[in-house]
């Protein structure tokens, strides 16, 4: 594939790649923003239960204009479809699912991820009083594992994968996997292990855009959906 054009991964590709990590029987929560795109890319050969903070247990893909109803929306309040096995609970019971550790994974957007697995995704500066927490702190603190879906760098080109987060954290040491537009990475304490890289990018090029040491996984390869 040496001739392949070198572009960063699209959001759909990033969502599809992380969704391919979902295992059969998992209960999965998709955060607001890019993570909710994953509902369009669930592995067809696995049974996945999508859970939403607003009480949907067992929703599916995003609805088309014709299919949309104002009654069925995901965490980002966008219309989705219910699966035939769906059930609905109120907000406190939706978080009972989360707090009791029943989520196999929470997929969240982030501003920064630390090499120690720290997640920062609720506040864009230390000085600001306000923030947007939503359900992220509950999910980050209580899910079995957290996957992050985010762009590799800020709009100014600064790295988001860092040795330690600069921004106030959402939860400590919870991130297991980070999918960016440059590849798939695992926090390893001192830096990140690169499992997959976007087509055409070298480890050195991605390292230059990363704020912590990158180590190649023994079987590091190009990003593959499955």
């Amino acid at each position, binding site marked *: 594939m040496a001739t392949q054009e070198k572009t960063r991964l699209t959001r*759909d590709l990033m969502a599809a790649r992380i969704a391919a990590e979902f295992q059969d029987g998992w209960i999965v929560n998709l955060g607001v923003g890019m993570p909710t795109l994953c509902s369009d890319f669930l592995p067809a050969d696995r049974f996945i239960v999508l859970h939403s903070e607003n009480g949907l247990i067992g929703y599916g893909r995003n609805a088309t204009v014709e*299919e949309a109803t104002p009654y069925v929306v995901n965490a980002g309040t*966008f219309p989705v479809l219910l699966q035939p096995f769906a059930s609905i609970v109120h*907000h406190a019971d939706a978080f009972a699912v989360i707090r009791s550790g029943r989520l196999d994974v929470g997929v969240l957007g982030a501003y920064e991820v630390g090499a120690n697995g720290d997640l920062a995704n609720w506040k864009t500066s230390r000085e600001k*009083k306000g923030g*947007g927490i939503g359900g992220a702190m509950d999910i980050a603190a209580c899910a079995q594992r957290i996957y992050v879906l985010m762009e590799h760098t800020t709009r100014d080109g600064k790295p988001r994968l860092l040795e330690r987060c600069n921004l106030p954290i959402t939860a400590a040491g919870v991130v297991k996997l980070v999918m960016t537009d440059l590849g798939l990475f695992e926090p390893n304490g001192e830096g990140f292990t690169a499992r997959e890289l976007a087509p055409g990018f070298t480890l050195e090029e991605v390292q230059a855009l990363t704020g912590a040491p990158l180590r190649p996984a023994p079987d590091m390869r190009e990003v593959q959906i499955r």
Partner: protein
Amino acid sequence: MPPPNKTYPDFASAVADIPDGATIMIGGFGAGTPHNLIKALYEQGAKDLTLILNAAGTGRDPGPGPAHVTPSTLIEARRVRKAIMAFTASTHPSRTTPVEELQEAGEMEAELVPQGTLAERIRAGGAGIPAFYTPTAVGTELAEGKEHRVFNGRTYLLYEALTADYAFVRAWHADEFGNLVFRRAERNFNPLMAMAARCTIVETEEILPIGALDPDHIHTPGIYVSRIVQIPPDGIFHITRGPAGGAAQQGR
């Protein structure tokens, strides 16, 4: 003696007695927002309010119609002294909200609470439980000054319950006694708030005679409900984001 009929003729009469300084819970998570009651409160004029809700909406670009009155409209009008919410900032870092601006300017107080903790504080308030421990937010800025306690080797934070003078609730169907049924994702905070307020005011798509709802299928018993208003044909039924914009917003 038959049960009381809690039906009010319109939204203005249902919110008329809300005094300055009242604490009001407002249901909704996009879907299930009591837009008509919020609009009636805006027109009624009460101020120095404390609001308890998930998020206030942006309040920007209100447009020409009353359909665009949100809790943020009340906030921009300086009618809110304090808000307790899961989002004081927008989920998108490029936008700012009226809450953020007024909080930075010292003109209002805002308490930011993780959404699950917010829901449970309201549930506890309605269930007669004064406080509870949660593992959420341990190790974060929000944990500073909070009581920490270790149970079975894990650290938890103490949060106190929330109650309110009024709750604004949006139901799909109600009967005249105030038994409520919610539809799909419109349930969210609504049944919790209905139980946590001293006076729960409901807007609903349809008021049915007593006996029309199956007792096994009622989500909120009428004993928690004080007033019910049926949304008139020219009222606000839904304010939604379209799927096309949805895909763009979600990142496509």
